[in-house]
C-alpha cells in the first residue's frame, strides 16, 4: 500500500514538473489556493490536544496547548 502511494506521489510530482513549460499558473496563484496556512477551521482535538500544539507565531495564548 505504502509503495503504491509512493509511486503515485512520484508520478504526480514528475507530471507536474514535466508540464511546467506549458502551465499557466494563474488559478493556483490565487489567494484562495494558498496551502501553507491552516484552513479556516483549525478544527480542535479536544481529547488529545495533538493538533493544538503551540507553534510560536500563531498569535494565540499558549494555555490551550497544556490541556
Amino acid at each position: 500500500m505504502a509503495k503504491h502511494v509512493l509511486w503515485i506521489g512520484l508520478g504526480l510530482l514528475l507530471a507536474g514538473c514535466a508540464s511546467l513549460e506549458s502551465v499557466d499558473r494563474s488559478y493556483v496563484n490565487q489567494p484562495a489556493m494558498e496551502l501553507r496556512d491552516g484552513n479556516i477551521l483549525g478544527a480542535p482535538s479536544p481529547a488529545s490536544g495533538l493538533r493544538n500544539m503551540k507553534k510560536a507565531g500563531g498569535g494565540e495564548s499558549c494555555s490551550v496547548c497544556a490541556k
Partner: protein
Amino acid sequence: MRQIALASLLLSSSAWALPAQVESQISATSTSGAAAVDFRGTSPQVSNYSSTISGRSPGLWNDSLIASVSLTTAKNDYSTTSLTNEEGQSTPLSDRFHGAETSAEFGLEWKGGAHTASLSYGQMLTQASPYPYRAVSAGYNVGFFSNATVLGTNLSWARQEQPLSFHTDARDLRIRAKPLALRSERAELWLEQVLTERWKMQVKGIAGQRIEDRPLHLGGELRNAYALTDRLSARLDTGLLRERRGEALKDEKGYFTTYWGELQATYEVIYDLLLTASAGTTVEREEVPWSGAQNQVGTDTYGLKASYRGRSWTVNLSGKISRSNTSYRSRGIQGGFVWEI
C-alpha cells in the same frame, strides 16, 4: 546619467517595496462540556476573549527582510479547569486567577532568490499567568522551477509552566504530581507542488513530542487545492498523527491516534470579496493498555468566513462551531482588519 539611472532605480524599488502593515484581530470563543468519553457531569459554558494587535515592517534591504511584532491579550475563563490536591480535592483554577493574560511575539522573515527563512520568538508577559510560556520557531523553504515546486521545513520548541496539580495513576492507584513545566517540540517537512494550472498539492511529514507527559507522535498531512472555475476553488486536507506505542505512558491517558479531514470551498462573489464555507471532522482514538478500553471522540466543525480586500486594507469576519460525540461543544467568532501603510 548615472544619477538618473540610480534615481529611477530607487523610485522603482520604492514603488515595488513591500508596504508596512498593521493588523487587529478580535475573537470570542464559548466552550461547554468535556471531551472525556466517561464524563458524567454537566460542565457550564465558559467564554474566552482575545485581541491581537500586530505590525509588520516595510520590506528592508531591497525587500529581502521583514520584521514583525504582535501583542495578544486574552481573557480566559478558568472556572472549568480543575486543580487537584494530594488529598484528591478539586478546586477551579479561576479561584486563583481570573485576570487577563498578555503575550508578545517577534518575527523575522528573510527572502533571497528562491530561498525564504523565518524565525520567531514568543513569550507570556503576564507574570501571574497560570500558564507562562516561551516558544521559538524557525522555518526555511526553497523553490524550484519558478516556485512550482517548494520544499520547506518548520521546527518549533515551546516550554510552558502549569499550576501544581495531582492525578491518580490507574495502574497502581497512587496519587502523582503532574509536571510543573511541559516542553514541546515539533518538526515538519513539506513539499508543495503545482500539478496543473488549477491543481496544487502539499504533502507534509510531522514528528513531535511533549517531553514530560506524552510519547513521541508521528504523522502527516495531505492538502489539495483545486480551482473549479476562475471564481470557485475547493480545498481538501486530510491528516493523521499517531503516538508511538513502544514508549512508557507518563500520565493518566492512554495512547492516542488522531486523524482528520477538512473540506473548504471559496467563492469570489464580486472582485476581491471572498466567501469561504468549511466542514471537517477530527477523530481521536485512545487505547488504554491497563484497562483494555478503546475510547473514540469525534468532533465535527463547521465554519464560514468572509474577506474583502480594499485598496490598501483587508477586512475579514469568520465564525465556527464544533460539536463532538461527548458533551464537548464550542462556538467562536473572529473579526480582523489589516491596514497597509
